[in-house]
């Protein structure tokens, strides 16, 4: 289910993976793996911000500007995860099958990877925003960050 969910999500933004010979590795490994990692990354960052920094510890990091920094961090880490995971899985696939990409295919692959990286940055940010609203009620000092709603 997760595989289908994340594949649908990424392909809705990026279209089918290119070159077409790598579609199976994207669908079976990269999309679900990166999606899941990104989700847990966003969850970890949300718990760090709302529970650790603003419940367990007494810190001054409760403002919307601090939340925005964590949002940015989630996007950057999301992009990093996407690039690293996709590059590693594709290299492994190419190495295991002995497939060589043509010059034009390599350029296409790179363009698709950049698009995937940028998309996952947005996905990470989106996850963090959604999880913020789920987790914020566990917080003491950031219950109303970034907005008062739904409190």
């Amino acid at each position, binding site marked *: 289910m997760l595989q289908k969910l994340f594949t649908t999500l990424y392909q809705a933004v990026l279209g089918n993976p290119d070159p077409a010979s790598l579609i199976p590795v994207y669908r079976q490994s990269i999309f679900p793996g990166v999606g899941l990692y990104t989700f847990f990354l966003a969850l970890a960052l949300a718990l760090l911000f709302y529970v650790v920094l603003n419940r367990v510890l*007494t*810190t*001054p990091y*409760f*403002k*919307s500007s601090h939340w925005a920094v964590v949002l940015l961090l989630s996007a950057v880490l999301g992009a990093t995860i996407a690039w690293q995971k996709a590059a590693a899985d594709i290299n492994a696939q190419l190495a295991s099958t002995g497939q060589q990409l043509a010059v034009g295919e390599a350029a296409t692959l790179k363009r698709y990877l950049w698009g995937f990286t940028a998309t996952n940055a947005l996905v990470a940010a989106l996850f963090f925003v959604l999880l913020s609203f789920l987790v914020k009620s566990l*917080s*003491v*000092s*950031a*219950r*109303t*960050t970034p907005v*008062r709603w739904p*409190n």
Partner: protein
Amino acid sequence: MAKLYIFGIGGTGSRVIRSLTMLLAAGVRVPNCDKVVPIIIDPDAQNGDMARTVELLKTYERLRKQLRLTPDSNDFFQTEIQTLASMAASENQPRDARVKETFVYNFGGMDESYRDFLHYDDMPVESRLLVDLLFTPANLQSKLTVGFKGSPNVGSVVLNQLVSSPEMEFFANSFAEGDRVFFISSIFGGTGAAGFPLLLKNLRNPRTALPRAELLNHAPMGALSVLPYFNLLADDGSAIDSNAFITKTKAALAYYQKNLQKLNALYYLGDQSTGQLANHEGGSAQQNNAHFIELVGALSVLDFMRQDTDYLLNNQPLHYEYGLEEDVRQVDFKALDPGQSRRLVGPDLTRLQLLALWCRHHLADTEQATYANHLQLRRAWREENFYLDLQRFLQDPQFGFETWLRELNSNERQFAPFALPATEDLNKVVNGQFTETGFFNKGITRDFVRVKLDKAIPAAVTGAEGPTAFIQAFSDVLRDVVTEKVPGF
């Protein structure tokens, strides 16, 4: 609901009421009483001391009206302060249109001379001779607009009109079982020295024309009579000479000894460590810095109210004086009796000072905090009347709490419980009682207080309930902070 009627007579009356108002704002409770009704009696309508006390009282009353506090707690502004008229309205008593919605007795703009007030020129010659014997020509020429210029012989005549006034009739009508009366005046001036015994005599007169005479005759009544505690700079052009303060005090005391009847408790206060103030006969220029004696005077009100009614009525007259734990020129909390005054005012005043510091230095930086968002404080602090009044109460340069502390700090004898000028460092608020800090214990930090406030207001508060939630949260949190972190209380 028992009430305390306080007659603040003359400039000293106003100044002691100012100090009492600060204590009540800090959450100090008046025992056996839910409501305080101050009545300021001063013919000098422009008097600076009176004007700013009235502004302070009005601000307090407006603030208090917007709060729905839990009875028997000791939150900021816990005790209600009301005018005679608004007190009657809140208890559904009939309204008297002649009684204005004000804390000040209305003398009706006396702008005539004392001579005209007496209708001297219409008197038979024998009466004129008697008047000439009792009053100096300067007394007779004196305009009554600025009061009695330290002449109790003038005051005792003019203030007789009080007894038949609508305000006194209204006061007597609203007087109920369990209510008490307290008079505050100085003994070395004109208005207070004359007004206090005159009022007492009339309220205790069994044949008085006032309503509810029986109740008034048996109600507990106390008084604070303030002996000299400041000197005035010599001024040949002024009718007031502070060299005569002691002489006038002796004369008044001799009179009191024989003529003060049926007073249940009398508090005497004075201070030989006196500073010199500018000599103003009255008017807006008469605006003396707050003095430690006035704060102690406010404590006499609390002490009087603390006492059991039967004890007051059966052991009269009780007489009290006040002594410092240490006779120091710079008084801080440690110079007060730890079992009484320090315990009574120290924690609560510290709490109010912490609130003032928070509003001055820390509120802006916590506008996005949970507590502030739940109160919608960023907007409310700038727009809502309650918060604007609170800022006025704490920060107004004329009558505010911060100004009051600065004045106490600069007077002689100096009352300096808090570090001034106030710093943002909440660990160094109380002089001589700094909060200890260490590597793992940062003491009272902004975040330490903010997190407590966040916990105190965990959910959104609707608009009308905001002021109450604000006051209750700050009262509870700052009480805990003082208890946990400030040593010596």
